[in-house]
């Protein structure tokens, strides 16, 4: 069954990161071609990691506070947290296999 990817906002971001031992947040915008191409990758990750990691999306256009807090200057950017601590920031379009490799090391 396909699971919809959680859409975060500036106000729900912190709770999501706190609630998931491993949290992966895809910072994106709808006009960004590479972000659109990343969408199916994030959906697959969300399905495959269901129960073991939290995968979510954050629209940087509607939620600028998180972009400012993490100094985001390019999208797509993947923020990866372990027990609430930012451990990896991946910039640019990535394959599912590439992202999985990073998650395995967390």
């Amino acid at each position, binding site marked *: 069954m396909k699971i919809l990817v959680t859409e975060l906002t500036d106000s729900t971001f912190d709770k999501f990161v706190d609630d998931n031992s491993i949290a992966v947040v895809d910072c994106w*915008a709808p*006009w*960004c*071609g*590479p*972000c*659109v*191409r*990343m969408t*199916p*990758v994030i959906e697959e990750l969300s399905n495959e990691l269901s129960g073991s990691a939290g995968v979510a999306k954050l629209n*940087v*256009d509607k939620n600028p506070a998180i*972009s400012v807090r993490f*100094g*985001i*200057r*390019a*999208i797509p*950017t993947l923020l990866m947290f372990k027990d609430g601590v930012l451990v990896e*920031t991946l*910039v*640019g*379009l*990535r*394959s*599912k296999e590439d992202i999985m490799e990073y998650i395995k090391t967390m």
Partner: protein
Amino acid sequence: MTTDVVIIGCGPAGLQAGIHSSRKKASTVIIGKLQNSALHGAHIENYFGISGSADGSDLLEKGMEQALSFGCRHIGMNVTAAAKEGDLFRVTTESGEEIVCRSVIIATGISRKKLNIPGEKEFLGKGVSYCAECDCNFYKGLRVAVIGDESKAAVSSELMTRYASEVYWVSERILADGRLVDKASGAGVKIITGTPKEVRGKANVESLLLTGGPEIGVDGVFIELGGKSSSDLALDLGVMPETDDTLKVNNSFETSVRGVFACGDITGEPWQLAKAVGEGAAAGHYAAKRAKDMK
């Protein structure tokens, strides 16, 4: 104008597609610059029927002559936009000319995106970007440099004037259409002739060093080489590229969108002349067939 087939890219795949399409009496327009093909300047030793070494530039010029002799029209420019309109497609060149077609073939090859200069990799996401359209909003009121010689740099630098306080377009030799250059200049872009040598900064980008010494103080460096990327063109036409920038095709070299074909390096490895030519022949054949079947 309306035509049967538009081919974007004029390397060996695009030219062979043009030859086969026009031989099937389909009106065909090839858009692209010969010098942007990976074959240009290369030496070929492993192509069927060639003994010794053949000059890639010669092959391209002869291929273009062949395509033109069969009735193809060639526009030596980049494509700046593409769109799906019902069963048809609209392709726009950098001079603003719009061509409506029944089939479109993407034969752009694999685009070079990176400059490979010191600081480029280190500051990715910290001031270095490969997509002005994606990241322009993060540079409101800041100073940026846009690097590139062709239409993508022209369009991106003009776009950045709507966000950044200062926009420098750094080019070794401007190859974009004059209208795009005028538009960028008119919007306030400062054009600097030079070769980027190093991106410098501490936590984020602080300057761009050029060969010979000049250093430009900037907060962002946008690397925008060549024309609109094949992936962006594909997305505009409704085709989702793979994460490695290749396009999936079926046995007729048609993508997931009916009427959009792809051939050559863009469909994946091996990046070989023989593969490009073979795929171009098939794509040209099926694109012409689709256009004729629509009439």
